[in-house]
């Protein structure tokens, strides 16, 4: 049974091409994926991300629970509204999902996990929360709209009441606040500034339409994917899964081996860190014409690897990718495209940040 967000009919009325995404009927594009991509890089675009799973965690021991659940340390969260990106690991150090956790009060944290992993995530969280006496409540009553781009914040702020605007205007990056019945977070998945806004379902269509009237371009999942890959952000299920540790997924920066914190998967990560991971994730750029795609074979001096996420980068005008390859000096790297070995360059990612190509890309 395909699920619909509250904005489904709105997308269809805008002429969206709809696709199945993790069991949800979602807009792929509203005409041109590339134009939507550029709208976000140059001005402001919006995405319906209501399919993502919002979970409220409440109880006296929430922080203690999250210390165990997450590979990143919630002790970095000291100010109400502050957000943290983290992986949630199984006992083997494999990634169950990646998520954002918001600290609201000592007995109330909010977590946003992926749509396609909803059922297993909820089952895992509920089971792990039980000994801590933490209540787990999915917030299916909230829609979510991501407004992203250099002009995104200004366009959102223009729609808020003076009181809400005063709070939202002051938000630092990766911080959220309440206002006008909305949950407004200065976060995103595009490499641009902007907000991700949770809005009660009953108000979501009106809010979407007000954003549209303010000149925010509707953008589909297609543009969301090219934007996040240019921004060097992982996609769960493609760049990592339960067979991969954060170290093998370029997510070492999200692992906190802080003193005395026993999180699930930690012993495996400590061993891997001491020995060095066997596989590493790298960014690739192809200067020749063509497109890098998921599943293509990557040939290195250390052996074969594989393209995880690959696409044509509308900002760079060439193909970019994440690949997982054997650790060590890879030598001259090539990708097998329909039997042809095409040279590629390993680069540091992000590929694009704040509308511009990064150095060395």
């Amino acid at each position: 049974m395909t699920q619909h967000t509250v904005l489904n009919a709105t997308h269809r009325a805008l002429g969206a091409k709809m696709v199945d995404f993790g069991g949800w009927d979602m807009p792929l594009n509203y005409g041109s994926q590339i134009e939507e991509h550029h709208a976000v890089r140059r001005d402001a675009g919006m995405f319906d991300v209501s399919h993502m799973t919002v979970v409220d965690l409440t109880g006296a021991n929430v922080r203690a629970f999250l210390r165990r659940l997450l590979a990143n340390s919630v002790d970095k969260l000291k100010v109400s509204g502050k957000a943290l990106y983290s992986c949630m690991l199984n006992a083997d150090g494999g990634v169950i999902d990646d998520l954002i956790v918001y600290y609201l009060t000592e007995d109330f944290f909010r977590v946003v996990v992926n749509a396609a992993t909803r059922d297993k995530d909820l089952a895992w969280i509920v089971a792990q929360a039980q000994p801590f006496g933490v209540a787990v409540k999915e917030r299916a009553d909230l829609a979510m709209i991501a407004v992203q781009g250099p002009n995104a914040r200004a366009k959102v702020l223009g729609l808020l009441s003076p009181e809400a605007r005063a709070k939202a205007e002051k938000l630092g990056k990766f911080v959220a606040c309440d206002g006008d019945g909305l949950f407004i977070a200065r976060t995103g998945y595009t490499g641009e500034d902007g907000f991700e806004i949770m809005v009660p379902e009953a108000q979501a269509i009106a809010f979407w339409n007000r954003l549209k009237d303010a000149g925010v371009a509707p953008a589909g999942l297609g543009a969301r994917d090219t934007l996040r890959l240019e921004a060097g952000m992982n996609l769960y299920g493609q760049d990592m899964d339960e067979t991969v540790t954060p170290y093998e997924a370029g997510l070492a920066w999200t692992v906190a081996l802080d003193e005395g914190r026993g999180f699930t998967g930690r012993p495996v990560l400590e061993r891997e860190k001491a020995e060095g991971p066997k596989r590493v994730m790298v960014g690739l750029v192809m200067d020749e014409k063509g497109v890098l795609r998921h599943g293509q074979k990557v040939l290195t001096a250390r052996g074969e690897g594989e393209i995880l996420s690959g696409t044509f980068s509308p900002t760079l005008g060439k193909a970019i990718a994440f690949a997982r390859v054997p650790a060590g000096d890879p030598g001259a790297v090539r990708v097998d495209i329909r039997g042809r070995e095409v040279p590629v360059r390993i680069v540091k990612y992000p590929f694009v940040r704040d509308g511009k190509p990064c150095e060395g890309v």
Partner: protein
Amino acid sequence: MSEIPGDLKFQKSHEWARVESDGTVTVGISDHAQSLLGDLVYVELPGVGDRVQAGNACAVVESVKAASDVYAPVSGEVVAVNEALSDKPETINEDAYGEGWIFVVKMENKDDLAELLDPDAYAELIEGEEH
């Protein structure tokens, strides 16, 4: 959806073929196919002089979303390719039945044409896909 020109023949796999006055056959992909693929970003052309076989893959069109094989509607020798597509693959999105042609074949056997759909039959086929 733009009007399908009446002088075209189609394969079920969404290629079009047009018999030119000199008997060669120009090949492209249908407007419906380009709209399914979305923004095209790369076209891998066959080589001039290659022999293509009806029903076999001989070119590739890639959109941001996916790579898709182009199957030859007729057998024969490739006598021209649309080099302009290398720099402007989006031409196929803009004008699938005109400037977006992909290659020209010197047909070996006219009977190949009998296997192809006329515009009405093709329109019916894509109508059926959409419902």
